[in-house]
């Protein structure tokens, strides 16, 4: 089903909020070391997709796997749909004929129902075991948010060391050392005891990035990391991401920075209305877009 280099793998990934379908079947394979950039119009489902990868958002159906382990699978909803439409047909027959004429339809209805029950049972037991493993998997998937989400009641140092120490990946001294190493690297050693409220947007986002890095993740998910920043601070954040990319970190980046996408990405995806409608190397993607919506989109943003 998937080769060993695939870090992230999704199949028919769907997500609805109520009746609103936001993701409509996304199949993707992300190999180790890849830098996948996702672009697309507002509301196309980019954030939702990213959040489904670490199950911050629970998908409606499909499959998500990470590092060889299945994090989420739910196919029973498809069967449920089938059952529903079959039931409608059967009801129609009964209304018209007074009895069920299509025996095979009834048989397949029963078969599907049994199938559904079995699938559901399996999925339920899977969900239960996943609940615990999910926290372990999330440790390996760093996430960087548009609005930083630093912990305002903790100092910069505490922000970075909280999770690795709580989760017993490092002891307090090791975590402090690691935090200092990263802070030196981004030139913010003097902010070690500051609170987030005392930092600029660019500083906050860089701290947020090293907070995620301190967990030693296998992949970093960035959701518009520079969209909330003043223009003069965008550069310092992109520089840091660029450095991480060069060091070989696997990344999935949602961004509106086209120049950055072209430069850092190894593959660019265009999302529209919950689907990936175009996917290519950066060069080809920008030079020869095929999809009309993508052409319009690029014409607007470039």
């Amino acid at each position: 089903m998937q080769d060993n280099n695939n870090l992230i793998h999704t199949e028919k990934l769907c997500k609805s909020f109520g009746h609103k379908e936001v993701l409509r079947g996304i199949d993707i394979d992300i190999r180790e070391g890849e830098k996948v950039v996702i672009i697309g119009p507002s509301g196309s489902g980019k954030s939702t997709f990213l959040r489904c990868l670490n199950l911050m958002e629970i998908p409606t159906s499909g499959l998500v796997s990470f590092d060889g382990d299945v994090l989420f699978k739910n196919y029973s909803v498809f069967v449920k749909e089938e059952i529903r439409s079959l039931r409608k047909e059967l009801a129609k027959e009964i209304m018209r004929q007074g009895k069920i004429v299509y025996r095979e339809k009834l048989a397949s209805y029963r078969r599907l129902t049994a199938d559904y029950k079995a699938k559901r049972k399996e999925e339920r037991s899977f969900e239960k075991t996943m609940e615990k493993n999910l926290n372990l998997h999330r440790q390996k998937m760093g996430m960087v948010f548009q609005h930083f989400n630093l912990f305002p009641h903790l100092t910069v140092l505490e922000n970075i060391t909280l999770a690795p120490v709580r989760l017993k990946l490092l002891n307090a001294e090791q975590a402090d050392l690691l935090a200092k190493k990263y802070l030196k690297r981004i030139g913010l050693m003097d902010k070690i005891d500051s609170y987030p409220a005392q930092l600029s947007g660019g500083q906050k986002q860089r701290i947020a990035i090293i907070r995620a890095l301190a967990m030693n993740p296998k992949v970093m998910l960035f959701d518009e990391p520079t969209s909330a920043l003043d223009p003069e601070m965008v550069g310092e954040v992109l520089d840091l991401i660029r450095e991480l990319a060069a060091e070989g970190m696997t990344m999935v980046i949602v961004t509106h920075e086209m120049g950055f996408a072209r430069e850092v990405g190894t593959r660019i995806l265009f999302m529209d209305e919950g689907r990936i409608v175009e996917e290519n190397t950066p060069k080809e993607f920008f030079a020869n877009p095929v999809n009309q919506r993508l052409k319009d989109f690029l014409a607007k943003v470039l």
Partner: protein
Amino acid sequence: MNFDFTILFNPKILQLLAKAYGWTIAITFMALTLGILIGTVLAIFLVLPQKNLINKILNKFASFYLAVIRGTPVLVQLMIICFVVFADVVFINRTVSPYIVATIGFGINSGAYVAEIMRAGILSVEKGQMEAGRSLGLSYGQTMRTIILPQSVKNILPPLGNEAITLVKETSVALIIGVSEFFTVIKGVVNSSYNVVTPYFFAAVVYFLTVMVMTQILKVIEKRLRKSDAR
């Protein structure tokens, strides 16, 4: 209106009043502590993500608790707890003192209000905080304890202070179950002296001063919190 302070200011009465005032404060304090314990648990039930049956049941239970407690007068609740639930042990075996019953009664009552306060405090913490915690691999409980609850404290403390003020005044209701709290003694003085004006006015002044002192303490705490906020 004929004030007669001699009925209050004799050593025996003053001693009784002081002791009863102590009980009023003690019951308030203990009931509030119990209320905070109950309220915290209920508030967690209320904000728990509604993803499985157990969480849904806990949530429904908490909502029901709040609806019942907030929908009935504290006087009625206290009577039911004392004369129905604890009737045997209080009046027949005499193993449980009415002071304990009053504390439990006010605690149960206060729990509902504290739950509402804490729920609002927890929900006032930005959604991104829970997400940031969970995305690092912290569990729901760990994120709640280390990230959400510490941040909600500054939104919880001021209304919690108001709850304490309400409670101090409400304890006067305990006289109906035979607790010698402050107002019970006042009532006793009224009955024995046939003077209505003096004891009641005195009671009003004492409650008022108590609330004033509590308000001042609250202000100091709030100021401290705000200071640490601006760091």
